[in-house]
């Protein structure tokens, strides 16, 4: 099901950079990765998004070859790296690059030597190292030892090192989690630029939805060992396939509603549905889709307001008692007790 989603995104993709079918990994009684299907097209940047413990790192390590699956197939660049009888190629033969969460730089080698490590005795080795150091903005730091670098610099060395041998697939395990928030923004943008420049297919694991949505071409949401949805960021956010995905990706109001085709009636009025539904359902309404107008005769009441500068989060008690949150521009000051009228922009989804 998930793989069909992925193929719908890239329907004519003849050579997928990564193709996973029915991949399963158990640890005793628990199944960390549960019959996962996933396809990543060449050149794509895919985010593997999930809460901690959902199995996403295990999935990444299975692809890399540091773990052996109990069942399933993996092929990288059209080449099977795990055969149907369960025998896997060792990591060094999979043509992958990996950026580790703690970077795992070689502490006994300089920056240059770290980057050159995967290049063997290839000609143009020095040129490639220089090119990558320039690309990641570390020109002139080649002779430093890793411990004399800041966290952001170590991260870039790890990236340069993984990219140097031109891997068919780059795997990044929570690459930004060890950076402080201010640095993270800049490094994210840098990484995206670098990956574009190298035209590499990449998968990165993250538990940060904003990171996944803002950085990736395609996001695969993983919940409890299974791929719940694979979609472009916008589709994932606006049309989640399940309630769980909707709740995990971004803030969400779930309101009881009565659906009839493309229309659902709930406390916020008659809403347009993106997918037809029928009967008693729950609709997902993102907080920023709700517009508020002060109206003393309106049935909804403000209970709480948090001011964020650019916008504000307003908590509401709707007619009928249901609660909802709206994220609205800050030009009107709402206060608890205010009566407001609501309008919902755009279609919503029902479950």
């Amino acid at each position, binding site marked *: 099901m998930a793989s069909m989603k992925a193929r719908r995104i890239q329907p004519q993709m003849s050579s997928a950079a990564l193709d996973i079918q029915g991949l399963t990994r158990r*640890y005793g009684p*628990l*199944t*960390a990765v*549960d019959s996962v299907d996933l396809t990543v097209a060449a050149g794509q940047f895919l985010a593997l998004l999930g809460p*901690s*413990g*959902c*199995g996403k*790192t*295990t999935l990444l*390590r299975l692809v*890399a*070859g*540091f*773990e*052996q699956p109990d069942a399933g197939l993996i092929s990288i660049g059209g080449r099977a790296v795990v055969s149907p009888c369960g025998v*896997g190629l*060792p*990591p*060094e*033969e999979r*043509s*992958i*690059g*990996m950026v*580790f969460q*703690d*970077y*795992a*730089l*070689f*502490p*006994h080698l300089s920056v240059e030597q770290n980057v050159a*490590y*995967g290049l*063997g005795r290839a000609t143009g080795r020095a040129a490639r190292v220089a090119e990558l150091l320039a690309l990641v903005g570390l020109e*002139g*730091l*080649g*002779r*430093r*030892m*890793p*411990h*004399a670098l*800041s*966290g952001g610099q*170590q991260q870039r060395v*790890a990236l340069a*090192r*993984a990219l*140097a*041998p031109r891997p068919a697939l780059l*795997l990044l395990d929570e690459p930004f989690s*060890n950076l402080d928030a201010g640095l993270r923004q800049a490094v994210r943008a840098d990484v995206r630029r670098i990956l574009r420049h190298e035209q590499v297919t990449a998968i990165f694991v993250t538990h940060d939805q904003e990171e996944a949505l803002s950085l990736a071409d395609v996001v695969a949401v993983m919940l*409890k*060992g299974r791929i719940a949805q694979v979609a472009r960021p916008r589709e994932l956010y606006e049309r989640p396939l399940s309630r769980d995905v909707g709740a995990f990706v971004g803030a969400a109001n779930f309101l009881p509603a009565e659906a009839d085709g493309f229309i659902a009636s709930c406390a916020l009025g008659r809403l347009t549905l993106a997918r037809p539904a029928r009967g008693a359902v729950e609709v997902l309404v993102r907080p920023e889709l709700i517009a508020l107008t002060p109206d003393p005769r309106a049935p909804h009441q403000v209970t709480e307001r948090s001011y964020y500068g650019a916008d504000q989060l307003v908590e509401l008690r709707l007619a009928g008692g249901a609660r909802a949150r709206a994220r609205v521009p800050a030009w009107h000051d709402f206060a608890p007790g205010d009566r407001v009228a609501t309008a919902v922009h755009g279609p919503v989804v029902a479950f």
Partner: protein
Amino acid sequence: MATVDHRLTLNPPATRRRTARPWLLLALSTLVVALVVLPIGYLALRAASAGPEAWGALLRPRTLRVFTGSAALALGTAALSTLLALPVAWLTVASDLPLRRFWAVATLLPLAVPSYIFGFAMVAVLGPRGMLQQALAPLGVERLPSIYGFGGALLTLTLCSYPYVLLTVRAALRRCDPAVEEAARSMGDGPRAVFLRVLLPQLRPAIAVGALLVALYALSDFGVVSLLQFDSFTRAIYMQYRGSFDRSGAAVLALMLVLLTLGLLWLEHLIRGRPSMSRTTCAVARPRRPVALGPWRWPAVLFCASLVLLGVGLPLFALSYWLIRGLSNGQALVSLWQASANSLLAGALAAALAVVCALPIAILAVRHPGRLSQLLERGAYLGYALPGIVVALALVFFGANVVPLLYQTLPMLLIGYTVRFLPQAVGSVRTSLQLMNPRVEEAARALGRRPLSVLTSVTTPLVAPGLLAGAALVFLTTIKELPTTLLLGPSGFPTLATMVWSATSEALFTRAAAPALLLMLLSALAMALMVAQDHAAEEPLRYNGQYEGTSHPATDE
């Protein structure tokens, strides 16, 4: 559509992760361990075929006394050594002790003193009619408290063997990430609490390994207990072996000694902490900043000084005394050249062989923990547990009966050394491996290197301090080793140790002094080398650390 309890879907620890079975490592380790277990198999065979008389000897009260005495000596030496070594390790790694580098070297020097020389020096200085008593005689001192028995043996063995704990703890301490301690400080712990709650638990594997080495050393030592007349197993076995035609009585006693050792191994297993202590905080640690001792610096210096004075000064003093006495009596220095060359050759080859044999076992134990690898590691420890005389004896019979081609050759002697001292190499390599981030190896695999290439280009340089420490330990112990050299050495292959032994056993103390001093000198040289290597490995890190945070790179161009 199996539903999984969400809370349970945590990533299991790295060590539990399944990887392909390491057949090559398993095969190599099994080969090495088979070599070690062989003499023990022979021993068991001899004991099993022993008559009821030999077994009956086990029930005599003297045997029980020997058993409890040996156990008390081993545990006491290990405990006392740890108590001495732990503060010294901390002072020389983490504090601003004056002359820190000097003490770091000087406190290791007792390693260069063979135990039988140490025992001899103790008797010559502190015994009845010894140098101290003679010096005090004009003051009317007729006799000193007796140096013979448990107390003397315990003191002497501790002074010989505490550096083993010092080495393992110091290596571990250097690799502990100071950021972890800083984190504890930030959470409100004082220096004392940090030491007890954070540092000590991290050092636990190293302490356990070091203390175990010391306990096993004390159990298998022959020189000290025979000279200080304490009835431990080795002395009893030697008496039995020499005193009767039927050697199976010695085999039965030796088997008991094996059991005692197994008890110690079990104890070590209990105190060893979690199997994996890899650094998890950050990729690369910063060098540690020394703790200011304040008013405690002079008591600390006094502590180190008295330890060095006892451990190095005392034997050096005694030997010099005898050497000068010999020279003044007109005794010519016996030619030492051949013996020195033989000792060096055998020691270096044995060190190399032991480290090569230790690598597969240590890697298997740390990277692929499981029942089998644990069994293999324990097996490797068995040879160290046996007193040298028993291993040598077993190998003599084995060599004579099974591989007569090797009997009384240098390879056979080297095998004997490796069987005896393999755990020293395994322990050091294992400790270094445990403190290494396994992700670094995975990074190398992901960059297209095969396991063997990863081993040479990443793992080996990173555990090099451990490899070197292991090799140095084996080299030093081998040069000092006596019983195996005596029984397995090729005929016409005199070493320094056998020279000292033959002279000492004939009470020709003046003749033993020169080769004994040379032995100490050679061992000290090897140790200086080891320390220099250690500092060389640290130097580039410290150098680069000074430029941390500055934007100007590559100042060494």
